[in-house]
């Protein structure tokens, strides 16, 4: 027998199934979320929101609320003369002064001895409004003479932000991108296809509702218990709003009941809670109700898109021209900037010599849009991958061959300047297609479209590209790590990167243990207190494993170097001859265990020339900022995926059942298989919800379904069979070769489902969601046609 003997303990942690470090406490109900924290003397805050979509505030009378026993403070804009507008373009005053622009607008706030009392006090506040005409359709907001949502404010200083100066149009943001020469691309095309798409409102639905606790100490320093995904950016911003030095703001992040991008911005409720704490001199906790969570949280932004693309008869793409229109809502949060991500999908998902993209995000009196897992890429990919299907049909190519013809390979640079140093895109397409028997089924189901029968099967393929090595949006895209090894050989990994449920602390611990030759139990992670943790830009852009991972590996290597350098003279060898393994220091050549780690660390600490093993490391990915034309290699790595879905459409009811999802993801390398699968499965189901069930119904600025009964999240019995493969393209810059994956799995689901519905029924649906009613209408030609996206002159 020539079998290689394997020890039972795997020699590496990489690729193993490592349970999350925080899971035991969570499963035992011991984890304390922000809603569970009760500080001595704590008050409870609540916010009075507008009852009108767009109105002048004529009068606010808070006298009855103030007189209620147990109420400690009632505040309105008049009580906070030093208020500053917040948000991405500073257009949102936390407490509104003379005008409300959407139903969620904050008018007054109360701090009281109980939540019930605070909410009761709100009902005693009288507000007199004078209604203004409302703009609740993005296209209307562009019309000449449209009601201005932020009209110019007389007497504003030049250079004042929108919140203080207003604007003389409704355009919150615009983006114009071009590479190559679209005219030339058109001329070279054999076929040109134009399509228009519309994407609806959905919202994050974190299971833990939004909440914050604010407290000032006797010196006026602010302590915030916050669920932010960007603690260090928040620190600076809160300081600005309070006119204090940022060093006086400390943010503690209790475990979070879901993030998904919703906590990337500062929201009025957080600032208002701080004002209440300042006004009362007591800690104030503010926690939403679920209805409030639906009404007052950010949304994924609704987008209208028109794509025009060409290709040659052999399938080579020639050009793409895109116009989109984003409903920004009444204020500007990160939603307005999603075109930056969308343009990457338009310009770089496939090899494309010529591309242009123009868009505006416009103000309206609708709910305002924020960032949401995928950051615009779900909308862009829905359009691109639906459109690609039509193009393939137009030249008589199958959907797989058409995509493979245009799919990038390793080493290519796109017109936008993305460089694909690792790229498993072709493999993703082939593996997903092969494992799902895509082509065979696609042909079979196409042939069966016209056959009689109530239930029709269909398969659909869609792919995606997303940043996988951070994204250089802010000045730095870096992350700091501190590693401390104590005399018990225990490692404390102090990282700037927040855990938001995605499992980052476990994967970081794993990477550190791998370097130090320790079991995962030897590490605890501290990642939740700005007073302790080093800087990190925040949890977004699928960057944490990549950026914080590299940072942690660097710190671990420094610790290892320090230990081995100190050990070498004792064992009469060079540091290079030693290694850390199995919880001790070993001779590299023979594996001989020389000493265990705790004993050795103690000998360092308690020596004459004593020293501590504490190391720091800062990692900044080797990416670049976009230039003015949005070009540049913005990420250190890029992630790819292809998904094939199989659906069953009930022609009698329009119900679409998602039967199976076959996904192939280029993740660079599998680090924690368990965590990775969890990210993919959760993302797939989130994408399923976006496509099939979820719909935040906004009519005339009002949300019609602010509850789980009517806003339908996917439940367990609807979950499809999943077959997920990982393509290991071993990224040269990635931590152990890995790339980011957090957002990827949700991105192409809607397009794949649209393609599958068409494969089943022959009907192409260009707007979401695919609820039974809408699908049924579409099958009977009764969905209204989408108007082309308006082009806005620069």
């Amino acid at each position, binding site marked *: 027998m020539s079998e290689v003997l394997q020890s039972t303990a795997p020699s590496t942690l990489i690729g193993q*199934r490592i*349970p*999350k470090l*925080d*899971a*035991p*406490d*969570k*499963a*035992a*109900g*011991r*984890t*304390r*979320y922000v*809603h*569970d924290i*009760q500080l001595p003397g704590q008050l409870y805050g609540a916010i009075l929101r507008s009852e009108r979509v767009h109105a002048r505030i004529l009068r606010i009378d808070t006298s009855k609320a103030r007189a209620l026993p147990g109420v400690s403070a009632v505040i309105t804009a008049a009580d906070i003369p030093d208020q500053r507008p917040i948000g991405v373009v500073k257009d949102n005053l936390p407490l509104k002064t003379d005008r409300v622009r959407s139903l969620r607008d904050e008018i007054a706030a109360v701090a009281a001895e*109980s*939540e*019930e009392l605070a909410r009761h006090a709100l009902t005693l506040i009288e507000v007199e409004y004078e209604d203004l005409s409302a703009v609740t359709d993005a296209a209307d907001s562009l019309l000449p003479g449209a009601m201005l949502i932020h009209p110019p404010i007389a007497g504003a200083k030049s250079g004042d932000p929108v919140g203080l100066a207003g604007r003389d149009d409704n355009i919150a943001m615009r983006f114009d991108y071009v590479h190559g020469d679209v005219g030339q691309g058109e001329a070279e095309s054999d076929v040109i296809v134009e399509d228009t798409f519309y994407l609806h409102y959905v919202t*994050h*639905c*974190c*299971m*833990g*509702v939004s909440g914050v606790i604010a407290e000032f100490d006797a010196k006026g320093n602010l302590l915030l218990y916050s669920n932010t995904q960007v603690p260090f950016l928040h620190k600076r911003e809160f300081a600005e709003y309070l006119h204090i030095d940022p060093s006086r703001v400390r943010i503690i992040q209790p*475990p*979070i*009941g*879901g*993030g*998904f991008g919703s906590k990337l911005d500062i929201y009025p409720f957080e600032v208002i809670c701080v004002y209440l704490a300042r006004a009362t001199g007591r800690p104030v906790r503010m926690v939403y*109700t*679920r209805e409030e969570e639906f009404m007052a949280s950010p949304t994924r932004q609704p987008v209208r898109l028109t794509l025009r693309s060409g290709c040659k008869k052999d399938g080579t793409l020639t050009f793409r021209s895109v116009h989109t229109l984003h409903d920004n809502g009444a204020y500007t949060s990160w939603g307005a900037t999603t075109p930056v991500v969308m343009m990457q999908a338009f310009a770089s998902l496939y090899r494309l010599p010529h591309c242009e993209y123009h868009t505006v995000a416009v103000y309206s009196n609708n709910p305002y849009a924020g960032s949401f897992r995928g950051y615009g890429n779900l909308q862009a990919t829905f359009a691109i991958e639906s459109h690609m299907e039509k193009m393939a049909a137009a030249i008589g190519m199958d959907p797989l061959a058409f995509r493979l013809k245009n799919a990038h390979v390793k080493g290519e640079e796109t017109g936008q300047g993305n460089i694909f140093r690792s790229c498993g895109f072709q493999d993703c397409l082939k593996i997903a297609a092969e494992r799902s028997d895509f082509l065979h089924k696609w042909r079979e189901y196409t042939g069966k479209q016209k056959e009689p029968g109530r239930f029709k099967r269909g398969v659909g393929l869609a792919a995606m590209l997303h940043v996988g090595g951070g994204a250089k949006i802010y000045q730095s895209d870096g992350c700091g790590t501190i590693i401390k090894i104590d005399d018990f050989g225990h490692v404390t990994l102090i990282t700037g990167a927040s855990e*938001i*449920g*995605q*499992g980052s602390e476990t994967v970081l611990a794993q990477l550190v243990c791998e370097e130090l030759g320790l079991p995962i139990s030897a590490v605890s992670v501290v990642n939740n207190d700005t007073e302790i943790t080093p800087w990190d830009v925040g949890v977004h852009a699928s960057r944490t494993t990549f950026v914080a991972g590299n940072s942690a590996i660097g710190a671990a290597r420094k610790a290892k170097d320090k230990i081995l350098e100190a050990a070498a003279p004792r064992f009469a060898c060079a540091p290079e001859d030693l290694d850390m393994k199995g919880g001790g220091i070993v001779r590299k050549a023979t594996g001989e265990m020389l000493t265990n780690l705790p004993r050795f660390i103690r000998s360092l600490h308690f020596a004459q020339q004593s020293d501590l093993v504490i190391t720091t490391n800062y990692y900044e990915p080797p990416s670049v900022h976009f230039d003015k034309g949005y070009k540049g290699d913005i990420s250190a790595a890029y992630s790819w995926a292809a998904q094939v879905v199989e659906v069953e459409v009930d022609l009698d009811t329009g119900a679409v059942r998602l039967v199976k999802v076959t996904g192939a993801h280029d993740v660079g390398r599998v680090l924690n298989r*368990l*965590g990775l*699968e*969890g990210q993919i*499965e*959760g*993302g*797939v*189901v*989130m994408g399923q919800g976006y496509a099939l069930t979820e719909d935040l119904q906004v009519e005339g600025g009002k949300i019609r379904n602010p*509850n*789980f*009964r009517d806003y339908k*999240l*996917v*439940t*367990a*019995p609807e*979950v499809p069979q*999943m077959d997920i493969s990982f393509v290991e393209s071993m990224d040269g810059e990635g931590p152990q070769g890995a790339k980011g994956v957090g957002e990827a799995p949700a991105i192409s689901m809607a397009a794949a489902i649209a393609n599958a519905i068409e494969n089943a029924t022959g009907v192409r649906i260009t707007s979401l969601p695919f609820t039974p009613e809408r699908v049924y209408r579409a099958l009977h030609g009764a969905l209204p046609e989408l108007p082309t996206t308006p082009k806005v002159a620069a």
Partner: protein
Amino acid sequence: MSATTEIVFMLNGAERRVGVPSTMSTLEMLRDMLGFTGTKYGCGEGECGACTILVDGASVNSCLMFAVDCAGRQVTTIEGLANDPCARVVQDSFVKHGAVQCGFCTPGMVVQSVHLLATHPHPDELSAQRAIEGNICRCTGYKKIVDAIVDAGCAVGDRS
């Protein structure tokens, strides 16, 4: 503010006597009054299962049950399952299978699973899915939760 009623009931095996307002839900009583914060508020309307507890052994959305109706009953929260052997198996299985991400739905899921295993010790995938139909999870996509429940069923079954 509503009038309070004094009730006596068993909470996690110990007798409790509390005065509760007539409009107060069991969830509010547990969390705000008694400090049992392992049970979560997700919606307050019976739609998410984050607040699942056991009342006389049956799983109940505590947000829908008036606190006064706890009178004379056996109420068990996630904290009360700390020493329950079946719950331990379920919790370990959740951890091992990666069924926990943000963890906010987890206490409700665990309580629901314990209830399922008490009545169906060997659930298959389908019955596990059905059992947690009323429990929403936004993070995991449910697959690993279902795996955890099915596997816990095997383990509990093996022991009995």
